[in-house]
């Protein structure tokens, strides 16, 4: 889990008030896709548009990872021919995209979610079942 100092500080200082789980959306089959429905617990915290955009980008990235196309077939055949030893040297396409996703999530956390007291957890750490959003206690000097 890649975290910057600021996020870790946030974690240590604040307590998690609750967690929201965005479940998988299986309407397109078994591909990895998350529901874009806006959870009610986040209504007070974040803009609906922003949230949907994040989830949609994640969905697009996962779709890219699992895409069936010439490139992935080529990789599969090449791997088969080399008895899968080629993966000692290079990463699979899926893993490359997963790295991209991890970077994206970290970036989103830093820019958007941490200032709002939220934290996105990379779905791969939850077995690609959910996007876990931790809501931290609101300790800011505000109306609450």
């Amino acid at each position, binding site marked *: 889990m890649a975290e910057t100092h600021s996020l870790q500080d946030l974690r240590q200082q604040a307590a998690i008030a609750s*967690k929201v789980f965005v479940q998988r959306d*299986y309407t397109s089959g078994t591909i990895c896709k998350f529901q874009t429905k806006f959870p009610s617990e986040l209504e007070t915290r974040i803009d609906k548009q922003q949230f949907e955009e994040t989830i949609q980008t994640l969905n697009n990235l996962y779709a890219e*990872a699992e895409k069936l196309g010439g490139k*992935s077939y080529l990789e599969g055949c090449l791997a*088969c021919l080399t008895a899968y030893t080629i993966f000692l040297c290079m990463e699979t*396409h899926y*893993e490359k995209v997963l790295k991209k996703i991890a970077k994206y999530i970290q970036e989103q956390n830093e820019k958007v979610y941490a200032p709002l007291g939220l934290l996105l957890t990379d779905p791969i750490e939850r*077995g*690609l079942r959910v996007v876990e959003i931790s809501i931290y206690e609101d300790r800011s000097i505000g109306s609450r």
Partner: protein
Amino acid sequence: MPEAKSRARSRYLIRPRPRDASRRKGKEGLGGGERHCPYLSSRLTPAIPVIGGVLFCFVIGTLLRTSFSDPGVLPRATPDEAADLERQIDVANGSTSTGYRPPPRTREVVINGQTVKLKYCFTCKIFRPPRASHCSLCDNCVERFDHHCPWVGNCVGRRNYRFFYMFILSLSFLTIFIFAFVITRVILRSETVGFLSALKDSPARYPLKSTAGGLVNTELLRNSSYLPSFSFLAESGPAASENRLVVVCFFSVWSIVGLSGFHTYLIGSNQTTNEDIKGSWSSKRGKDNYNPYSHGNIFTNCCAALCGPLPPSLIDRRGYILPDTPLPAPPTNGITMYGATQSQSHMAAATPLLQNSAEQPLVAEEPPLPGRASLGGGGGGGGGGGPCPASLLLGQPTPPTSTPSLSCDGEIIPPHPPHPPEPPHLHPHAPHQHQHPHPHPHPHSHHHFLTPEEAPSPPGMLPCSSPLAHSHTVPFYHPASQDSLHEDSVRGLVKLSSV
């Protein structure tokens, strides 16, 4: 020089001298297969053992890859996730928690026009993705669950299906290869002695006239007493191993080739063995029933299954398992590390291979392939697939837990320190523990047999009797009890009561 070569070759086509026969005899002790190689390699071409060796290595390689790769295990839900799901289910069901069994937990999803039911897995505390299934032998939910192969010792699922397919395909080629060359050897030997004599040890015993190239031997056809006797199998000596090899190869070829053909069909139609056996997408169920996962044409389906992107493993199989706060509850099958997922950031679901093989008796759990030209019931040779007692339990989502797990759970409840001190012990260990409405928040696993009967009674009235091997009955799964103490103990055991 080509002329010399052809002359040399033609020399071998003429009947070999008796010297050859005596020389061959010296290599009897090696057994059928090995003896054939020098003979065939000198007689025909030395490429034969080379090709055979390459095929064999490939078969072993794919077998090992299938056995030791993660089939696509879904890690168990973290306690927070499970709690969240429970809440959602309660809201959806209208919380009929008056002591009656809660209705089965399913969700319906429309995929490509077909309605698919997603079932809730009580062991893993998740709603299973479509095509996933819980394997009772591995005790994990597996994505795109095909079957649990006892020959390979692992589940066959999304991540290792292609290796499994390559294994059985290469094994078919290997068995056909061996069979062909064993027959060739018999034929070649029968050129010197008669066909029947080639199958026998001593040619003098059956003074049948040998015909040249004697495979089609009229004597054999006329001599009807020979065919049913199979006495040639019981021979001892150099021909005996050959005969047995022929028989073994024959049955192997049929079962393995049949299995490969079946899986080729499955790949082409993008189905799993599980779905095919249940007839989920067969047209017999309804006119509009079709497979929503199929890509349309066979070629795309094949490419997707065999050459598609290989997703990485979702579980951390090398991570250290950190125990939870010390539990008074007995360890379960030793598999679940699920409490540890909270303490570490990696998924630490069970490593299915090592633990289960020690615990579970290896029942032939392979679902029987329905008459698809496979003699054995599984992924293997002729004689192995006969009885598949619990075969249909596998790949079935929740209710009937197979006997092995029952017996294991029964065994695992050890005679551990007395129960009265339990309640005070629990509190320091379970800071998040809820106040249970019933008097004994006992984390013990319980017998299956009792729960369906206990279920109707209100939770507070359960007796704390222990006539059954120290097991205390816990009522049906209390939705609110999400503390880690209960996770391990009620894992999978409430299925019968709730579904």
